[in-house]
C-alpha cells in the first residue's frame, strides 16, 4: 500500500473554510521513458483522485502523465457539520487506495 499523508484541521467552526492537503507516494511513471534496459517502461500513474464527505463527492481531480511523482493536491471546503472525509486515489495497474480523516465541527 502506498504511503499517504493527509492534513486537515481536527476541529473547525461551522462556516469556516478549511484547507485539506493530501500527498501520496507514487512513481507517476509516464509511459514515455526508457528503463535501464532501453525498453519503454509501462505507464503507471494515478488517473483519478476523489474526496467525499459523508459519502457526498466534494472534490475530484483527473491526473495525466505529466504530473510529478508523489502527487500533492490541496483544496478547500466549507465546514458544515462533523463527519468523515474519504480520500480515494485510483490509477493504472488496478491502483486503488482509500484513506479517511474526521472533522469535528463545534
Amino acid at each position, binding site marked *: 500500500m502506498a504511503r499517504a*499523508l493527509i492534513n486537515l484541521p481536527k476541529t473547525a467552526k461551522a462556516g469556516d473554510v478549511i484547507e485539506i*492537503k493530501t500527498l501520496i507516494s507514487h512513481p507517476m511513471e509516464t509511459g514515455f521513458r526508457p528503463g535501464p534496459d532501453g525498453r519503454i517502461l509501462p505507464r503507471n500513474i494515478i488517473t483519478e483522485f476523489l474526496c467525499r464527505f459523508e459519502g457526498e463527492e466534494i472534490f475530484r481531480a483527473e491526473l495525466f502523465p505529466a504530473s510529478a*511523482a508523489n502527487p500533492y493536491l490541496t483544496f478547500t471546503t466549507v465546514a458544515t457539520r462533523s463527519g468523515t472525509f474519504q480520500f480515494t486515489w485510483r490509477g493504472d495497474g488496478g491502483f486503488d487506495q482509500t484513506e479517511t480523516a474526521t472533522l469535528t465541527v463545534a
Partner: protein
Amino acid sequence: MIRTATAALAALLLAPGPAAFPGEIAPADKRSGFAEMGPALQAMQRDDTAHPGMLWVQDGADLWARAPSADAPACGGCHGEARASMRGVAARYPAWDARSGRPIDLEDRINQCRRTHQQAEPFARESADLLGLTAFVALQSRGMPLAPPDDSRLAPARQEGRALFEARMGQLGLSCAICHDDHWGRHLGAAVIPQGHPTGYPLYRLEWQGLGSLQRRLRNCMSGMRAEPYPFGAPEYVALELYLAERAAPLPLETPALRP
C-alpha cells in the same frame, strides 16, 4: 556544442561578482542551500505535511519499530525511543568506527548495526529502506548544529576529503572548490551555485522526484564535471563527507531537506 558550453563556462568564471575572491567561505557568509531557494520551495520544506520526503521518513519510522526477523530485535528494541536516543547522532557523522578501523557515515553505521546486532542483510545503498531509515534517524537531530567529532583518527581522511574537494577532475578540469568556494551565489545557467553544505541529507530533490543521499549528490556533481564517479560506498565519498561536515559546521541540520 561543447565549445559553446566551455566558452560560456569560461565567461561565467571570469565575470566579476561579489564572490570573486577565491578561497574559503568566511564564517559569517556560511549559509545553507535553503537560503538560495524561492519562497515556494522554502515553504514546502518547512511544512511536514507538504514535504514529500516525509513519506520516506514515515517508512523509516516503521522500519525502526519493526524487527527484521523473529529472533532479532528491532532498532527500537535496543535504542528505545528514537526521539531521545538518536537526538544529535546524525550531526556527528561521519565518525570513526573502531571495528572496521575506518571512518563511516550514517548509512554505513545503520547497515553495520543490521549485520552485527540484527543478523540481517545490510540494505543496498540508495535503497528506499536505507534512505528512509537514515532520514528518520537524522530527523531526530533537525535544528541541531553540525558537530563533527574532534577525533584525531579522522584527520587523515578529512585531509584527503579536502584534497579531493580542491582537486581538478574530469574532462572539464573543474574542482568542487572552483564552484562552491570561489563562485557560490552566482549562476551556472539558470541555477544559483550553492555553497554545497551537506546539511539536509538524505534530501528530497525535485529533479530526482525522490529521496537521495549525499553520495548520490556527489556522483551527480562528478558526472556534471565529466569525471567518472566513484562507486557507491567508496571511501573517497566518506572522506569528502568528513571534510564537507567540517566545512559546513556549525550550520543546523535540516534533514530531510528539499531542493530543486
